[in-house]
Protein backbone atom coordinates (compact mmCIF):
# COMPACT_ATOMS: atom_id res chain seq x y z
CA UNK A 1 0.00 0.00 0.00
CA UNK A 2 2.94 2.30 0.57
CA UNK A 3 4.24 1.82 -2.93
CA UNK A 4 1.71 4.03 -4.72
CA UNK A 5 2.06 6.67 -2.01
CA UNK A 6 5.79 7.01 -2.55
CA UNK A 7 5.42 6.77 -6.30
CA UNK A 8 3.17 9.79 -6.62
CA UNK A 9 3.94 11.91 -3.58
CA UNK A 10 7.56 12.58 -4.46
CA UNK A 11 7.45 14.73 -7.59
CA UNK A 12 11.23 14.47 -7.99
CA UNK A 13 10.63 10.96 -9.34
CA UNK A 14 8.47 11.90 -12.26
CA UNK A 15 8.75 15.56 -13.07
CA UNK A 16 10.14 15.03 -16.57
CA UNK A 17 8.67 15.36 -20.00
CA UNK A 18 10.58 12.39 -21.48
CA UNK A 19 9.98 9.60 -22.22
CA UNK A 20 6.67 10.66 -23.65
CA UNK A 21 3.99 8.39 -25.08
CA UNK A 22 2.04 9.67 -28.03
CA UNK A 23 2.91 13.24 -27.12
CA UNK A 24 1.87 12.91 -23.48
CA UNK A 25 4.78 13.91 -21.21
CA UNK A 26 6.07 11.41 -18.63
CA UNK A 27 4.74 13.57 -15.76
CA UNK A 28 1.20 12.91 -16.89
CA UNK A 29 1.16 9.31 -18.00
CA UNK A 30 3.19 8.21 -14.98
CA UNK A 31 0.53 9.54 -12.65
CA UNK A 32 -2.33 8.22 -14.74
CA UNK A 33 -0.68 4.83 -14.76
CA UNK A 34 -0.54 4.83 -11.00
CA UNK A 35 -4.30 5.17 -10.81
CA UNK A 36 -4.46 1.69 -12.25
CA UNK A 37 -1.57 0.74 -9.97
CA UNK A 38 -3.36 1.82 -6.84
CA UNK A 39 -6.53 -0.01 -7.82
CA UNK A 40 -4.51 -3.18 -8.23
CA UNK A 41 -2.65 -2.71 -4.91
CA UNK A 42 -5.82 -2.03 -2.93
CA UNK A 43 -7.56 -4.88 -4.70
CA UNK A 44 -4.79 -7.28 -3.72
CA UNK A 45 -4.93 -6.17 -0.10
CA UNK A 46 -8.69 -6.52 -0.13
CA UNK A 47 -8.51 -10.09 -1.34
CA UNK A 48 -5.70 -10.98 1.06
CA UNK A 49 -7.53 -9.63 4.08
CA UNK A 50 -10.67 -11.38 2.97
CA UNK A 51 -9.21 -14.77 2.30
CA UNK A 52 -7.47 -15.12 5.65
CA UNK A 53 -10.72 -14.46 7.47
Amino acid at each position, binding site marked *: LLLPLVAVLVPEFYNFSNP*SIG*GVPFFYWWQ*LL*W*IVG*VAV*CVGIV*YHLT*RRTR
Partner: protein
Amino acid sequence: VIPSFNGLEFGIVIGMFAAVTVLGFVATRWHRGASLTSLEEWGLGGRKFGTTVSWFLMGGDLYTAYTFVAVPALLFGTGAAGFFAVPYTIVVFPLVMFVAARMWSVCNEHGYATAADLVRGRHGSRVLALLVAITGIVATMPYIALQLTGIRAVFEVMGIGGDWPLWVAFVVLAAFTFTSGLRAPALVAIVKDILIYVMVLVAVSYIPYKLGGYGFIFHGAQSALAAKGYGTLLTGSQYLGYTTLALGSALALFLYPHSVTGVLASRSQDVVKKNMSLLPAYSLMLGFIALLGYMALAAHVKPVGGTAKAPDTTTIVPVLFNSQFPHWLAGVAFGAIVIGALVPAAIMAIAAANTFARDIYRPYIRPSGSYRQEVSKFVAMEEGLVCQIVSVILKLGAVAVIVSLKLTFALEFQLIGGVIVIQILPAVVLGLYTRWFHRWALVAGWIAGMGLSVCMLYVTKSATAAHFGSASFALSSLGLHTKVTIWTGIVGVVANLVVATVLTPLLAWLPRSRDETSPDETQPAIRIAGPVLGLQRSGAQPPYRRQQAAWPVAGPPTGSVPPAADAKGLGRHRRRA
Protein backbone atom coordinates in the same frame (compact mmCIF):
# COMPACT_ATOMS: atom_id res chain seq x y z
CA VAL B 1 -17.85 37.89 -24.86
CA ILE B 2 -21.43 36.72 -24.41
CA PRO B 3 -21.94 33.46 -26.29
CA SER B 4 -25.01 33.11 -28.40
CA PHE B 5 -28.06 31.34 -27.06
CA ASN B 6 -28.74 28.00 -28.69
CA GLY B 7 -32.22 26.56 -28.48
CA LEU B 8 -31.19 22.98 -29.07
CA GLU B 9 -28.58 22.96 -26.31
CA PHE B 10 -30.97 24.60 -23.92
CA GLY B 11 -33.75 22.17 -24.78
CA ILE B 12 -31.54 19.14 -24.19
CA VAL B 13 -30.31 20.44 -20.83
CA ILE B 14 -33.83 21.23 -19.65
CA GLY B 15 -35.08 17.84 -20.85
CA MET B 16 -32.34 15.99 -18.98
CA PHE B 17 -32.96 18.09 -15.94
CA ALA B 18 -36.65 17.23 -16.00
CA ALA B 19 -35.94 13.53 -16.41
CA VAL B 20 -33.66 13.59 -13.40
CA THR B 21 -36.24 15.39 -11.33
CA VAL B 22 -38.81 12.71 -12.08
CA LEU B 23 -36.25 10.05 -11.22
CA GLY B 24 -35.56 11.80 -7.94
CA PHE B 25 -39.19 11.55 -6.92
CA VAL B 26 -39.50 7.97 -8.08
CA ALA B 27 -36.54 7.12 -5.85
CA THR B 28 -38.79 7.55 -2.84
CA ARG B 29 -40.27 4.15 -3.56
CA TRP B 30 -36.99 2.43 -4.28
CA HIS B 31 -36.06 -0.29 -1.73
CA ARG B 32 -38.26 1.46 0.67
CA GLY B 33 -38.01 0.74 4.38
CA ALA B 34 -40.78 0.79 6.95
CA SER B 35 -40.90 4.55 7.09
CA LEU B 36 -39.03 7.30 5.36
CA THR B 37 -39.41 9.73 8.16
CA SER B 38 -36.59 8.55 10.40
CA LEU B 39 -33.08 9.80 9.97
CA GLU B 40 -31.76 6.30 9.34
CA GLU B 41 -34.03 5.88 6.36
CA TRP B 42 -33.94 9.41 5.01
CA GLY B 43 -30.32 10.25 5.62
CA LEU B 44 -28.61 6.90 5.20
CA GLY B 45 -30.94 5.10 2.82
CA GLY B 46 -31.60 2.50 5.53
CA ARG B 47 -27.90 1.51 5.47
CA LYS B 48 -28.42 -1.11 2.85
CA PHE B 49 -26.75 -0.10 -0.38
CA GLY B 50 -24.78 -2.86 -2.06
CA THR B 51 -21.46 -2.67 -3.88
CA THR B 52 -22.73 -1.22 -7.12
CA VAL B 53 -24.99 1.44 -5.68
CA SER B 54 -22.35 2.38 -3.10
CA TRP B 55 -19.81 2.68 -5.84
CA PHE B 56 -21.98 5.10 -7.74
CA LEU B 57 -22.95 6.93 -4.59
CA MET B 58 -19.42 7.38 -3.28
CA GLY B 59 -18.17 8.12 -6.75
CA GLY B 60 -20.86 10.70 -7.28
CA ASP B 61 -19.94 12.00 -3.89
CA LEU B 62 -16.21 12.33 -4.25
CA TYR B 63 -15.90 13.17 -7.92
CA THR B 64 -18.07 16.15 -8.46
CA ALA B 65 -18.32 19.43 -10.31
CA TYR B 66 -14.90 19.87 -8.78
CA THR B 67 -13.81 17.28 -11.28
CA PHE B 68 -15.35 18.55 -14.48
CA VAL B 69 -15.05 22.22 -13.88
CA ALA B 70 -12.57 23.19 -11.21
CA VAL B 71 -9.64 20.88 -11.95
CA PRO B 72 -9.40 21.65 -15.68
CA ALA B 73 -9.78 25.32 -14.80
CA LEU B 74 -6.80 25.01 -12.51
CA LEU B 75 -4.68 23.34 -15.18
CA PHE B 76 -5.80 25.99 -17.59
CA GLY B 77 -4.71 28.68 -15.17
CA THR B 78 -1.59 27.33 -13.48
CA GLY B 79 -0.32 24.35 -15.46
CA ALA B 80 1.23 21.26 -13.89
CA ALA B 81 0.48 22.28 -10.29
CA GLY B 82 -3.19 21.76 -11.02
CA PHE B 83 -2.56 18.11 -11.71
CA PHE B 84 -2.18 17.52 -7.96
CA ALA B 85 -5.76 16.23 -8.09
CA VAL B 86 -4.49 13.01 -9.62
CA PRO B 87 -1.96 12.00 -6.94
CA TYR B 88 -4.55 13.19 -4.43
CA THR B 89 -7.13 10.72 -5.63
CA ILE B 90 -4.47 8.02 -5.88
CA VAL B 91 -3.21 8.25 -2.31
CA VAL B 92 -6.63 8.56 -0.77
CA PHE B 93 -7.60 4.91 -1.25
CA PRO B 94 -4.69 3.17 0.45
CA LEU B 95 -4.88 5.75 3.22
CA VAL B 96 -8.52 5.38 4.05
CA MET B 97 -9.25 1.78 3.15
CA PHE B 98 -8.99 0.45 6.67
CA VAL B 99 -10.11 3.61 8.39
CA ALA B 100 -13.34 3.65 6.43
CA ALA B 101 -13.97 -0.04 7.01
CA ARG B 102 -13.38 0.33 10.71
CA MET B 103 -15.55 3.39 10.89
CA TRP B 104 -18.32 1.50 9.18
CA SER B 105 -18.29 -1.35 11.67
CA VAL B 106 -18.15 0.82 14.77
CA CYS B 107 -20.88 3.12 13.55
CA ASN B 108 -23.04 0.26 12.42
CA GLU B 109 -22.77 -1.46 15.79
CA HIS B 110 -23.74 1.59 17.79
CA GLY B 111 -26.11 3.25 15.38
CA TYR B 112 -23.90 6.27 14.83
CA ALA B 113 -24.86 8.28 11.78
CA THR B 114 -22.09 10.89 11.69
CA ALA B 115 -18.45 11.44 12.60
CA ALA B 116 -19.54 13.58 15.54
CA ASP B 117 -21.71 10.74 16.89
CA LEU B 118 -18.66 8.57 16.78
CA VAL B 119 -16.52 11.11 18.63
CA ARG B 120 -19.13 11.62 21.31
CA GLY B 121 -19.45 7.89 21.88
CA ARG B 122 -15.76 7.18 21.76
CA HIS B 123 -14.32 10.05 23.74
CA GLY B 124 -17.39 10.77 25.84
CA SER B 125 -16.95 14.46 25.19
CA ARG B 126 -19.88 16.55 24.09
CA VAL B 127 -17.69 19.57 23.49
CA LEU B 128 -15.45 17.66 21.12
CA ALA B 129 -18.45 16.21 19.31
CA LEU B 130 -19.92 19.66 18.90
CA LEU B 131 -16.65 20.96 17.47
CA VAL B 132 -16.51 18.07 15.04
CA ALA B 133 -20.10 18.67 13.97
CA ILE B 134 -19.62 22.39 13.42
CA THR B 135 -16.36 21.82 11.56
CA GLY B 136 -18.05 19.36 9.25
CA ILE B 137 -20.96 21.63 8.46
CA VAL B 138 -18.81 24.72 7.91
CA ALA B 139 -16.42 22.83 5.65
CA THR B 140 -19.25 21.40 3.59
CA MET B 141 -20.73 24.78 2.73
CA PRO B 142 -17.97 25.87 0.34
CA TYR B 143 -18.07 22.42 -1.23
CA ILE B 144 -21.78 22.76 -2.01
CA ALA B 145 -21.04 26.24 -3.29
CA LEU B 146 -18.40 24.79 -5.62
CA GLN B 147 -21.01 22.49 -7.13
CA LEU B 148 -23.32 25.40 -7.78
CA THR B 149 -20.49 27.35 -9.40
CA GLY B 150 -20.26 24.51 -11.88
CA ILE B 151 -23.94 24.81 -12.72
CA ARG B 152 -23.64 28.54 -13.13
CA ALA B 153 -20.66 28.16 -15.46
CA VAL B 154 -22.67 25.92 -17.77
CA PHE B 155 -25.60 28.30 -17.94
CA GLU B 156 -23.31 31.24 -18.50
CA VAL B 157 -21.76 29.54 -21.48
CA MET B 158 -25.18 28.72 -22.88
CA GLY B 159 -25.82 32.43 -22.91
CA ILE B 160 -28.01 32.54 -19.85
CA GLY B 161 -26.37 34.84 -17.37
CA GLY B 162 -27.57 35.91 -13.99
CA ASP B 163 -28.36 33.92 -10.91
CA TRP B 164 -31.82 32.60 -11.69
CA PRO B 165 -30.71 29.20 -13.05
CA LEU B 166 -29.12 28.65 -9.65
CA TRP B 167 -32.39 29.29 -7.90
CA VAL B 168 -34.23 26.91 -10.20
CA ALA B 169 -31.62 24.25 -9.55
CA PHE B 170 -31.94 24.91 -5.86
CA VAL B 171 -35.71 24.46 -5.83
CA VAL B 172 -35.56 21.18 -7.74
CA LEU B 173 -32.76 19.89 -5.58
CA ALA B 174 -34.51 20.85 -2.38
CA ALA B 175 -37.79 19.31 -3.50
CA PHE B 176 -36.50 15.90 -4.37
CA THR B 177 -34.06 15.47 -1.54
CA PHE B 178 -36.77 16.59 0.85
CA THR B 179 -39.06 13.77 -0.19
CA SER B 180 -36.62 10.99 -1.06
CA GLY B 181 -33.58 11.53 1.14
CA LEU B 182 -30.36 9.80 0.20
CA ARG B 183 -32.12 7.43 -2.19
CA ALA B 184 -32.67 10.20 -4.72
CA PRO B 185 -29.03 11.15 -5.28
CA ALA B 186 -28.02 7.48 -5.17
CA LEU B 187 -30.35 6.63 -8.01
CA VAL B 188 -29.58 9.76 -9.99
CA ALA B 189 -25.85 9.17 -9.49
CA ILE B 190 -26.09 6.01 -11.57
CA VAL B 191 -27.56 7.89 -14.51
CA LYS B 192 -25.16 10.76 -14.09
CA ASP B 193 -22.04 8.63 -13.99
CA ILE B 194 -22.92 6.70 -17.10
CA LEU B 195 -23.49 10.00 -18.88
CA ILE B 196 -20.23 11.43 -17.62
CA TYR B 197 -18.24 8.36 -18.61
CA VAL B 198 -19.57 8.52 -22.12
CA MET B 199 -18.88 12.24 -22.34
CA VAL B 200 -15.32 11.86 -21.14
CA LEU B 201 -14.58 9.09 -23.58
CA VAL B 202 -15.94 11.18 -26.39
CA ALA B 203 -14.11 14.30 -25.23
CA VAL B 204 -10.67 12.75 -24.77
CA SER B 205 -10.77 11.07 -28.14
CA TYR B 206 -12.75 13.49 -30.29
CA ILE B 207 -11.15 16.77 -29.23
CA PRO B 208 -7.51 15.67 -29.63
CA TYR B 209 -8.48 14.19 -32.98
CA LYS B 210 -9.93 17.51 -34.02
CA LEU B 211 -7.06 19.56 -32.64
CA GLY B 212 -4.27 17.39 -33.99
CA GLY B 213 -3.20 14.91 -31.31
CA TYR B 214 -1.87 15.02 -27.77
CA GLY B 215 1.56 16.15 -28.87
CA PHE B 216 0.03 19.28 -30.30
CA ILE B 217 -2.08 19.82 -27.19
CA PHE B 218 0.84 19.64 -24.78
CA HIS B 219 2.95 21.77 -27.03
CA GLY B 220 0.23 24.39 -27.35
CA ALA B 221 -0.43 24.31 -23.63
CA GLN B 222 3.27 24.69 -22.84
CA SER B 223 3.63 27.78 -24.98
CA ALA B 224 0.41 29.30 -23.62
CA LEU B 225 1.44 28.61 -20.03
CA ALA B 226 4.99 29.88 -20.53
CA ALA B 227 3.53 33.27 -21.39
CA LYS B 228 1.96 33.33 -17.92
CA GLY B 229 5.04 32.08 -16.12
CA TYR B 230 3.84 28.51 -15.65
CA GLY B 231 4.53 25.30 -17.51
CA THR B 232 3.44 21.72 -18.06
CA LEU B 233 6.09 20.58 -15.58
CA LEU B 234 6.56 21.53 -11.95
CA THR B 235 9.31 23.88 -10.91
CA GLY B 236 11.48 22.96 -7.94
CA SER B 237 9.74 25.41 -5.63
CA GLN B 238 6.37 23.82 -6.35
CA TYR B 239 7.29 20.34 -5.13
CA LEU B 240 6.43 20.84 -1.48
CA GLY B 241 3.13 22.51 -2.26
CA TYR B 242 2.22 19.77 -4.73
CA THR B 243 2.96 16.95 -2.30
CA THR B 244 1.32 18.49 0.75
CA LEU B 245 -1.72 19.50 -1.25
CA ALA B 246 -2.20 16.00 -2.62
CA LEU B 247 -1.58 14.26 0.70
CA GLY B 248 -3.59 16.73 2.74
CA SER B 249 -6.57 16.74 0.43
CA ALA B 250 -6.56 12.96 0.53
CA LEU B 251 -6.55 12.93 4.33
CA ALA B 252 -9.32 15.49 4.43
CA LEU B 253 -11.55 13.80 1.87
CA PHE B 254 -12.98 11.08 4.04
CA LEU B 255 -13.57 13.41 6.96
CA TYR B 256 -16.24 15.34 5.15
CA PRO B 257 -19.72 14.53 6.41
CA HIS B 258 -20.84 13.49 2.94
CA SER B 259 -18.04 10.94 2.61
CA VAL B 260 -18.95 9.51 6.00
CA THR B 261 -22.55 9.32 4.84
CA GLY B 262 -21.50 7.50 1.68
CA VAL B 263 -19.50 4.98 3.70
CA LEU B 264 -22.18 4.44 6.32
CA ALA B 265 -24.93 3.92 3.78
CA SER B 266 -23.18 0.74 2.60
CA ARG B 267 -24.62 -2.61 3.47
CA SER B 268 -21.47 -4.16 4.89
CA GLN B 269 -17.85 -3.59 5.67
CA ASP B 270 -16.97 -5.75 2.74
CA VAL B 271 -18.77 -3.37 0.43
CA VAL B 272 -16.71 -0.48 1.79
CA LYS B 273 -13.40 -2.24 1.30
CA LYS B 274 -14.22 -3.55 -2.11
CA ASN B 275 -15.16 -0.08 -3.22
CA MET B 276 -11.78 1.29 -2.23
CA SER B 277 -10.26 -0.74 -5.02
CA LEU B 278 -13.05 -0.02 -7.47
CA LEU B 279 -13.29 3.73 -6.96
CA PRO B 280 -9.96 4.57 -8.63
CA ALA B 281 -11.79 4.04 -11.91
CA TYR B 282 -13.17 7.49 -11.24
CA SER B 283 -9.68 8.88 -10.75
CA LEU B 284 -8.76 7.78 -14.23
CA MET B 285 -11.68 9.80 -15.48
CA LEU B 286 -10.53 12.73 -13.37
CA GLY B 287 -7.08 12.58 -14.91
CA PHE B 288 -8.46 12.73 -18.41
CA ILE B 289 -10.87 15.48 -17.54
CA ALA B 290 -8.01 17.48 -16.06
CA LEU B 291 -6.31 17.37 -19.44
CA LEU B 292 -9.32 19.15 -20.90
CA GLY B 293 -7.74 22.24 -19.37
CA TYR B 294 -4.76 21.84 -21.68
CA MET B 295 -7.00 21.12 -24.63
CA ALA B 296 -8.69 24.41 -23.90
CA LEU B 297 -5.31 26.14 -23.88
CA ALA B 298 -4.27 24.53 -27.13
CA ALA B 299 -7.60 25.39 -28.74
CA HIS B 300 -7.19 29.02 -27.62
CA VAL B 301 -10.44 28.98 -25.70
CA LYS B 302 -11.32 32.20 -23.95
CA PRO B 303 -13.23 32.00 -20.67
CA VAL B 304 -16.60 33.67 -20.47
CA GLY B 305 -17.52 36.11 -17.74
CA GLY B 306 -15.47 37.56 -14.93
CA THR B 307 -13.36 40.61 -15.52
CA ALA B 308 -10.49 41.15 -17.91
CA LYS B 309 -7.99 40.99 -15.04
CA ALA B 310 -9.57 37.97 -13.39
CA PRO B 311 -11.49 35.96 -15.98
CA ASP B 312 -13.89 33.30 -14.77
CA THR B 313 -11.82 30.25 -15.68
CA THR B 314 -14.49 27.87 -14.40
CA THR B 315 -16.26 28.36 -17.71
CA ILE B 316 -13.46 26.97 -19.86
CA VAL B 317 -14.69 23.38 -20.06
CA PRO B 318 -18.21 24.35 -21.13
CA VAL B 319 -16.72 26.82 -23.60
CA LEU B 320 -14.43 24.12 -24.96
CA PHE B 321 -17.36 21.76 -25.47
CA ASN B 322 -19.35 24.53 -27.04
CA SER B 323 -16.65 25.37 -29.55
CA GLN B 324 -15.54 21.82 -30.39
CA PHE B 325 -18.71 19.73 -30.23
CA PRO B 326 -21.81 19.92 -32.41
CA HIS B 327 -24.64 21.59 -30.55
CA TRP B 328 -26.60 18.48 -29.66
CA LEU B 329 -23.51 16.84 -28.15
CA ALA B 330 -22.61 19.99 -26.26
CA GLY B 331 -26.16 20.01 -24.91
CA VAL B 332 -25.81 16.47 -23.60
CA ALA B 333 -22.44 17.34 -22.08
CA PHE B 334 -23.87 20.38 -20.35
CA GLY B 335 -26.76 18.36 -19.01
CA ALA B 336 -24.28 15.83 -17.65
CA ILE B 337 -22.30 18.54 -15.89
CA VAL B 338 -25.40 20.09 -14.35
CA ILE B 339 -26.66 16.75 -13.06
CA GLY B 340 -23.14 15.88 -11.99
CA ALA B 341 -23.12 18.96 -9.82
CA LEU B 342 -26.61 18.44 -8.41
CA VAL B 343 -26.01 14.91 -7.14
CA PRO B 344 -23.09 15.70 -4.84
CA ALA B 345 -24.72 18.93 -3.73
CA ALA B 346 -27.71 16.87 -2.63
CA ILE B 347 -25.56 14.31 -0.81
CA MET B 348 -23.60 17.02 0.92
CA ALA B 349 -26.69 18.84 2.05
CA ILE B 350 -28.15 15.59 3.39
CA ALA B 351 -24.92 14.76 5.22
CA ALA B 352 -24.58 18.18 6.77
CA ALA B 353 -28.23 18.06 7.79
CA ASN B 354 -27.71 14.63 9.39
CA THR B 355 -24.90 16.12 11.39
CA PHE B 356 -26.97 19.07 12.47
CA ALA B 357 -29.94 16.99 13.53
CA ARG B 358 -27.92 14.37 15.37
CA ASP B 359 -25.23 16.43 16.96
CA ILE B 360 -26.50 19.94 17.41
CA TYR B 361 -30.27 19.77 17.42
CA ARG B 362 -30.73 16.69 19.55
CA PRO B 363 -28.19 17.28 22.31
CA TYR B 364 -28.37 21.07 22.50
CA ILE B 365 -31.62 22.44 21.19
CA ARG B 366 -33.90 19.63 22.17
CA PRO B 367 -32.37 17.42 24.82
CA SER B 368 -34.98 14.78 25.49
CA GLY B 369 -33.93 12.59 28.37
CA SER B 370 -32.27 9.25 28.23
CA TYR B 371 -30.94 7.39 25.26
CA ARG B 372 -33.82 4.91 25.38
CA GLN B 373 -36.41 7.60 24.95
CA GLU B 374 -34.50 9.11 22.11
CA VAL B 375 -34.89 6.02 20.04
CA SER B 376 -38.65 6.27 20.33
CA LYS B 377 -40.48 6.59 17.09
CA PHE B 378 -41.72 10.07 17.70
CA VAL B 379 -38.28 11.52 18.26
CA ALA B 380 -36.90 9.67 15.28
CA MET B 381 -39.55 11.26 13.12
CA GLU B 382 -38.92 14.68 14.55
CA GLU B 383 -35.22 14.26 13.94
CA GLY B 384 -35.90 13.29 10.37
CA LEU B 385 -38.01 16.36 9.84
CA VAL B 386 -35.39 18.67 11.31
CA CYS B 387 -32.93 17.04 9.00
CA GLN B 388 -35.06 17.71 5.96
CA ILE B 389 -35.60 21.33 6.88
CA VAL B 390 -31.95 21.94 7.63
CA SER B 391 -30.90 20.46 4.33
CA VAL B 392 -33.05 23.06 2.59
CA ILE B 393 -31.59 25.86 4.68
CA LEU B 394 -28.06 24.72 3.90
CA LYS B 395 -28.67 24.71 0.18
CA LEU B 396 -30.18 28.15 0.46
CA GLY B 397 -27.04 29.26 2.28
CA ALA B 398 -24.82 27.83 -0.42
CA VAL B 399 -26.73 29.65 -3.14
CA ALA B 400 -26.35 32.84 -1.15
CA VAL B 401 -22.59 32.26 -0.85
CA ILE B 402 -22.30 31.84 -4.60
CA VAL B 403 -24.41 34.82 -5.46
CA SER B 404 -22.52 37.09 -3.10
CA LEU B 405 -18.95 35.87 -3.67
CA LYS B 406 -17.24 35.69 -7.00
CA LEU B 407 -14.04 33.71 -6.82
CA THR B 408 -11.70 33.14 -9.69
CA PHE B 409 -10.78 29.59 -8.91
CA ALA B 410 -13.75 27.61 -7.74
CA LEU B 411 -11.29 25.04 -6.52
CA GLU B 412 -10.00 27.28 -3.77
CA PHE B 413 -13.44 26.88 -2.16
CA GLN B 414 -12.85 23.23 -1.80
CA LEU B 415 -9.26 23.56 -0.66
CA ILE B 416 -10.20 25.98 2.09
CA GLY B 417 -12.94 23.58 3.18
CA GLY B 418 -10.29 20.88 3.29
CA VAL B 419 -8.05 22.98 5.54
CA ILE B 420 -10.94 23.30 7.96
CA VAL B 421 -12.17 19.73 7.89
CA ILE B 422 -8.77 18.11 8.37
CA GLN B 423 -8.63 19.54 11.89
CA ILE B 424 -11.01 16.82 13.08
CA LEU B 425 -8.60 14.10 11.93
CA PRO B 426 -7.01 13.50 15.37
CA ALA B 427 -10.36 13.17 17.09
CA VAL B 428 -12.04 11.00 14.48
CA VAL B 429 -9.42 8.86 12.81
CA LEU B 430 -6.90 8.48 15.63
CA GLY B 431 -9.87 8.10 17.92
CA LEU B 432 -10.89 5.00 16.00
CA TYR B 433 -7.59 3.39 16.89
CA THR B 434 -6.57 4.74 20.26
CA ARG B 435 -8.06 6.39 23.28
CA TRP B 436 -4.67 7.50 24.47
CA PHE B 437 -5.44 11.13 23.68
CA HIS B 438 -7.26 12.98 26.39
CA ARG B 439 -10.48 14.55 25.26
CA TRP B 440 -9.57 18.02 26.45
CA ALA B 441 -6.18 17.71 24.80
CA LEU B 442 -7.99 16.97 21.55
CA VAL B 443 -10.17 20.02 22.06
CA ALA B 444 -7.08 22.15 22.66
CA GLY B 445 -5.43 20.65 19.60
CA TRP B 446 -8.46 21.50 17.51
CA ILE B 447 -8.37 25.09 18.74
CA ALA B 448 -4.65 25.40 18.02
CA GLY B 449 -4.85 23.82 14.58
CA MET B 450 -7.93 25.70 13.53
CA GLY B 451 -6.63 28.99 14.89
CA LEU B 452 -3.32 28.66 13.10
CA SER B 453 -4.96 27.61 9.83
CA VAL B 454 -7.42 30.47 9.85
CA CYS B 455 -4.63 32.97 10.56
CA MET B 456 -2.58 31.55 7.71
CA LEU B 457 -5.56 31.64 5.36
CA TYR B 458 -6.29 35.18 6.43
CA VAL B 459 -2.88 36.52 5.46
CA THR B 460 -2.88 34.71 2.12
CA LYS B 461 -3.60 37.05 -0.73
CA SER B 462 -4.73 36.22 -4.22
CA ALA B 463 -5.11 38.21 -7.39
CA THR B 464 -8.67 39.09 -6.48
CA ALA B 465 -8.88 38.91 -2.71
CA ALA B 466 -6.79 40.42 0.07
CA HIS B 467 -7.63 37.62 2.50
CA PHE B 468 -8.57 33.94 2.24
CA GLY B 469 -7.17 34.03 -1.27
CA SER B 470 -5.80 30.52 -1.41
CA ALA B 471 -5.14 27.40 0.62
CA SER B 472 -1.47 27.42 -0.33
CA PHE B 473 0.55 29.30 2.24
CA ALA B 474 3.58 31.11 0.89
CA LEU B 475 6.59 30.55 3.12
CA SER B 476 7.76 33.99 2.09
CA SER B 477 5.10 35.35 4.46
CA LEU B 478 7.41 34.20 7.25
CA GLY B 479 10.22 36.30 5.86
CA LEU B 480 11.89 33.43 4.03
CA HIS B 481 13.23 34.28 0.62
CA THR B 482 11.63 31.49 -1.28
CA LYS B 483 8.74 30.90 -3.61
CA VAL B 484 7.89 27.63 -1.89
CA THR B 485 4.28 27.22 -0.80
CA ILE B 486 2.77 24.65 1.50
CA TRP B 487 -0.79 23.51 1.95
CA THR B 488 -2.13 25.32 5.01
CA GLY B 489 -4.06 22.36 6.36
CA ILE B 490 -0.92 20.27 6.84
CA VAL B 491 0.64 22.91 9.06
CA GLY B 492 -2.59 23.24 11.00
CA VAL B 493 -3.01 19.54 11.57
CA VAL B 494 0.59 19.13 12.69
CA ALA B 495 0.09 21.91 15.24
CA ASN B 496 -3.13 20.21 16.24
CA LEU B 497 -1.40 16.87 16.83
CA VAL B 498 1.53 18.40 18.70
CA VAL B 499 -0.75 20.23 21.09
CA ALA B 500 -2.94 17.17 21.64
CA THR B 501 0.09 14.97 22.27
CA VAL B 502 1.81 17.38 24.65
CA LEU B 503 -1.32 18.07 26.64
CA THR B 504 -2.45 14.47 27.04
CA PRO B 505 0.10 13.56 29.75
CA LEU B 506 -0.37 16.95 31.37
CA LEU B 507 -4.10 16.38 31.67
CA ALA B 508 -3.72 12.88 33.05
CA TRP B 509 -5.00 14.01 36.44
CA LEU B 510 -8.43 14.76 34.99
CA PRO B 511 -10.85 11.83 35.10
CA ARG B 512 -11.05 9.78 31.94
CA SER B 513 -14.35 9.76 30.16
CA ARG B 514 -16.46 6.73 29.40
CA ASP B 515 -16.05 4.95 26.13
CA GLU B 516 -19.42 3.86 24.83
CA THR B 517 -17.84 1.60 22.28
CA SER B 518 -16.20 -0.47 24.98
CA PRO B 519 -18.36 -2.03 27.68
CA ASP B 520 -15.37 -2.56 29.96
CA GLU B 521 -14.05 0.79 31.07
CA THR B 522 -11.37 -0.58 33.29
CA GLN B 523 -9.36 -1.98 30.44
CA PRO B 524 -6.16 -0.09 29.84
CA ALA B 525 -5.99 2.14 26.81
CA ILE B 526 -3.32 -0.06 25.23
CA ARG B 527 -5.91 -2.59 24.24
CA ILE B 528 -6.64 -0.54 21.17
CA ALA B 529 -3.05 -0.43 20.05
CA GLY B 530 -3.31 -3.87 18.48
CA PRO B 531 -5.39 -3.33 15.38
CA VAL B 532 -3.19 -0.63 13.94
CA LEU B 533 -4.36 -1.33 10.47
CA GLY B 534 -7.62 -2.96 11.41
CA LEU B 535 -6.20 -6.12 9.93
CA GLN B 536 -6.96 -8.65 12.54
CA ARG B 537 -10.63 -7.88 12.72
CA SER B 538 -11.10 -9.52 9.41
CA GLY B 539 -7.78 -11.28 9.30
CA ALA B 540 -7.65 -13.26 12.52
CA GLN B 541 -11.04 -14.06 13.81
CA PRO B 542 -10.59 -17.72 14.78
CA PRO B 543 -7.42 -17.10 16.86
CA TYR B 544 -9.11 -14.12 18.46
CA ARG B 545 -11.88 -16.36 19.69
CA ARG B 546 -9.47 -18.89 21.10
CA GLN B 547 -7.44 -16.27 22.86
CA GLN B 548 -10.51 -14.75 24.34
CA ALA B 549 -11.26 -18.07 25.93
CA ALA B 550 -7.72 -18.30 27.20
CA TRP B 551 -7.82 -14.97 29.02
CA PRO B 552 -11.35 -14.67 30.22
CA VAL B 553 -10.82 -12.00 32.85
CA ALA B 554 -7.31 -10.74 33.08
CA GLY B 555 -6.82 -9.69 29.51
CA PRO B 556 -3.72 -10.46 27.52
CA PRO B 557 -0.34 -11.02 29.15
CA THR B 558 1.69 -7.89 29.28
CA GLY B 559 4.28 -7.26 26.66
CA SER B 560 2.24 -8.42 23.74
CA VAL B 561 -0.75 -6.94 22.04
CA PRO B 562 -2.57 -9.86 20.49
CA PRO B 563 -5.89 -9.41 18.78
CA ALA B 564 -7.69 -10.62 21.85
CA ALA B 565 -6.63 -7.45 23.58
CA ASP B 566 -9.17 -5.79 21.45
CA ALA B 567 -11.90 -8.24 22.21
CA LYS B 568 -13.83 -5.95 24.48
CA GLY B 569 -13.32 -2.87 22.40
CA LEU B 570 -13.67 -1.97 18.79
CA GLY B 571 -12.48 -5.34 17.60
CA ARG B 572 -15.66 -7.06 18.45
CA HIS B 573 -17.48 -5.32 15.67
CA ARG B 574 -17.12 -8.04 13.20
CA ARG B 575 -18.28 -7.63 9.70
CA ARG B 576 -21.78 -8.68 9.02
CA ALA B 577 -22.43 -11.54 6.72
